[in-house]
């Protein structure tokens, strides 16, 4: 689960950063001293969870939430207990944590958020099954590499390989290493084109050159196919 922090007070940001560091499976992507900067960031990045201070000058936490069309899950971090009732009028707010935040309370809150994030059914970009190759090539994905968002056309992707905390996206022209998981990227990919054939590999089925026993050849790469995924792969093929 990835997250960002929005708090105008540096002390508070550093404390939450430290708390994030102590919780497993929580990746802090960025910290922002104000909501405006965060909105710009959220326009270009998918985030699962926001730690949001309510009481900020100019633009409060609630003002911020109202600007978001599809807000991620939010944990409010505040020194003010008076907003608790208002907070729970927002579906996106999963918890309300009063500063100073202890690790125990923080961990509990993150666990709670995780149950909500896990329930969210990712909506892959819709592709008409009758679409032409050109239509597919217009559908793309942005990946964050060294703070740059790089556009990758789905149709150019051949293989995606899990490598620890990273994935490697192999395209026709270039390979990209991105801090993410196969599960996350799979949610963003059109099902019609991509198939997870092994716990470490997702392939573009249009790029298959040949299939032999429990492997497929894509470009120059031989990719293993696990026994459980083979039936689904065979279903996708236009067999003579």
């Amino acid at each position: 689960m990835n997250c960002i922090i929005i708090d105008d007070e540096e002390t508070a940001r550093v404390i939450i950063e430290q708390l994030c560091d102590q919780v497993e499976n929580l990746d802090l992507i960025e910290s922002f001293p104000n909501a405006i900067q965060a909105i710009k960031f959220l326009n270009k990045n998918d985030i699962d969870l926001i730690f949001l201070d309510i009481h900020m000058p100019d633009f409060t936490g609630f003002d911020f939430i109202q600007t978001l069309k599809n807000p991620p899950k939010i944990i409010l971090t505040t020194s003010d207990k008076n907003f608790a009732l208002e907070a729970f009028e927002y579906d996106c707010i999963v918890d309300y944590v009063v500063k100073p935040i202890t690790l125990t309370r923080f961990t509990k809150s993150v666990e709670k958020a995780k149950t909500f994030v896990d329930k969210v059914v990712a909506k892959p970009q819709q592709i008409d099954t009758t679409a032409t190759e050109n239509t597919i090539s217009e559908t793309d994905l942005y990946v964050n590499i060294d703070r740059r968002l790089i556009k990758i056309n789905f149709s150019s992707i051949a293989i995606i390989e899990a490598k620890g905390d990273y994935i490697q996206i192999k395209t026709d022209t270039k390979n990209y290493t991105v801090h993410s998981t196969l599960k996350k990227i799979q949610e963003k990919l059109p099902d019609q084109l991509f198939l997870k054939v092994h716990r470490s590999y997702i392939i573009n089925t249009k790029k298959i050159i040949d299939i032999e026993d429990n492997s497929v050849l894509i470009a120059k790469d031989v990719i293993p196919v696990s026994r459980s995924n083979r039936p689904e792969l065979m279903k996708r093929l236009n067999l003579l």
Partner: protein
Amino acid sequence: MHEVPNNTYIKQLANGNTAFEEKLIAIVKREFPEEQAEFIKNYKYKNYITAAENVHKLKNKIGMLGMEKGYQLAIDFENDLKVKKTILYPEFIVLLNQMEDFIMNL
């Protein structure tokens, strides 16, 4: 108010990470005098609503230093300032001075 500031929370948070502890203390040492001065200026000029916001911000540091009574005092004073009541000012200033001494010796 028989309550003294302490660094228990900071130590627990750092969990032995001295680099983090030093970083946090350095930030608090920089931020606290600024926030304190801002509050005193706004109070002096009777900008009580803004002063209440300053108290709100200081509340986080009061809590960090383990001052539970001080934290409640800040809540009460913040609410008072919003309705231009200043009776808790002397007590709050004592609290700030106590924090200042402690923070600068961290």
